[in-house]
């Protein structure tokens, strides 16, 4: 490239969209919406052994206004669904949702009047994490899938132009 050869190693040329995606991918700030045992596994993922900060996510934010990934970990009752939707609306764009565990994704074993049967009925979920609860490795795989997806987005285009998330080894074994 011309600039690098002219000015040396201190210059790097790239496309603006790639630069934006590089930044977004490697600095995800999760909001932990933990309501059940999945939140314990989420905490284990954040702790020293699994250390989610290796993926640029060490900044867990407890305010939706400072976060861009909503990790819903646990069952969502009907009383909590308006709260969850309000939290999602308060998050700045661009924003993504990870539905962690069987309960958040489908209602799990709680097929009752009080539990929402999957948050994806009312919220746009990007990645689902299977398990009851999922182990930290599964959550890390899901978040890496989300990173791949974000990296493939066109940051200037409409939302529909995003490619589908690449199917990782864990999801493949389910299919």
């Amino acid at each position, binding site marked *: 490239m011309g600039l690098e050869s002219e000015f040396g190693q201190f210059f790097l040329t790239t496309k603006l969209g790639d630069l934006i995606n590089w930044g977004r991918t490697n600095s995800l700030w999760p909001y932990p919406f933990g309501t059940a045992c999945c939140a314990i596994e989420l905490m284990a993922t954040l702790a020293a052994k699994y250390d989610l900060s290796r993926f640029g996510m060490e900044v867990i934010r407890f305010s939706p206004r400072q976060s861009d990934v909503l990790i819903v970990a646990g069952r969502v009752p*009907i*009383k909590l*669904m*308006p709260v969850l*939707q309000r939290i*999602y*609306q308060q998050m700045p*764009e*661009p*924003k993504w949702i990870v539905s962690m565990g069987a309960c958040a994704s489908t209602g799990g074993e709680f*097929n*009752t*009047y*009080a*539990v*929402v*049967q999957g948050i994806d*009925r*009312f*919220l*746009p979920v990007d990645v689902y994490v299977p398990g009851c609860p999922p182990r930290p490795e599964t959550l890390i795989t899901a978040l890496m899938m989300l990173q791949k997806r974000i990296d493939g987005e066109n*940051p*200037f*285009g*409409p*939302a529909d132009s995003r490619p589908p998330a690449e199917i990782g080894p864990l999801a493949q074994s389910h299919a």
Partner: protein
Amino acid sequence: MEPATDIEQGLRRAAPEAVLDVHRFRDQLTITLRREHAKRLLGFMRDDAGLRFAFLSDLSGVDVVELGRAWRFEVVYHLVSFDHNRRVRIKTAVPGDDPWTDSVVDLWKGAIWQEREVFDLLGVGFRGHPDLRRILLPDDFADHPLRRDYPLRGKGERENFPVLGKPRPRDFVPLFAAAKEPNAGH
């Protein structure tokens, strides 16, 4: 241990027509009372020197519609006497067509949330309760889901939310174009 017969005798002396049923099972005594007399008799059991059931251990409600009794609901009081070291279970029979009973918040202040819970889940009203609102379910919930005729999967409450979609990313190109144009708003 012999089930305490003095409790039943004391209640029958205080109000003979109030006792609907007396049940003994494994040394546990359960007495069912008419709702019109229940609060007065519970106060009597709390204050009577021979009984002294001063502590309301638990207050709950049951829908007994499938048991074929003359009443539909039972409000259950578990009383403990620390003075005499014994327990008793008192039930109040509440008919289903006009479900109410008298609040015992005057006698035990701790009953305030438990009566709200029974009201919330079973729809039994408590006369004289200072703040009878729902305590667990959302305020706009229309039903009482612990009733036996309420379906397990609800009546559509869990489907009744707006569907939020993915927000459309901001289009950068018109944003830059708008900056070049003269501002028509001013």
